[in-house]
């Protein structure tokens, strides 16, 4: 399946686009596996990725949470609003 993953802030700037399109197998369709796939494809993100949370339909997903195919997926680097 193709997953669209939204990017913000420094991730958007470093990747140079506002989302990633990723092909994930069924076994890769979890939060933890998604982060591993992104790290393989974008080794320049290795330092930041351990601090990045994954949002699934506007909720933070636990590492083993699965990614529904129709969900809105986003990478959330450490926030700094307020």
């Amino acid at each position, binding site marked *: 399946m193709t997953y669209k993953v*939204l990017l*913000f*802030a*420094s991730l958007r*700037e470093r990747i140079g686009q506002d989302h990633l399109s990723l092909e994930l197998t069924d076994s890769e369709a979890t939060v933890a596996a998604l982060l591993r796939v992104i790290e393989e494809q974008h080794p320049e993100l290795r330092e*930041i990725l351990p*601090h990045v949370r994954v*949002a699934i339909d*506007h*909720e*933070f997903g636990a590492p083993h949470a699965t990614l529904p195919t129709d969900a809105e997926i*986003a990478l*959330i*680097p*450490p*926030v*700094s*609003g*307020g």
Partner: protein
Amino acid sequence: MTTPPLIELVEAPISIDETMRRVEDPGCGAFVVFSGTVRDEHHGKQVDRLEYSAYAPMARAKMLEIAETARERWPLRKVAIIHRLGTLEIGEMSILIILALPHRKEGFAALEYCIDRFKEIVPIWKKEHFTDGEAVWVEGS
């Protein structure tokens, strides 16, 4: 309380007086307010301006979640949480939280909860533009 919280992401300057009018409640005698503003320095470097960016729909959902959790834990009658996006100059207000209560006692802890939680879970990021021309996304606070 049945009034929904006032949750907003805005581009224009925020007025406390105007927001107070929007949450006024004749049964409330106490309003506690937190206002965050742009400081002129960060880690010793002179800041020229800030740029706030949001994952807007999730930010609104998380702001609403904070307001509703606070209302469950404390006797709040009205809640307003407003964050500004875009470019802000030194001294301008980035966030405004107003809690209205019949009596003040429990307002202070509730106010601290709201801003602490905001800084943990609301997907908004700031980019600091320094006077020397450097600009960096702040990740974590």
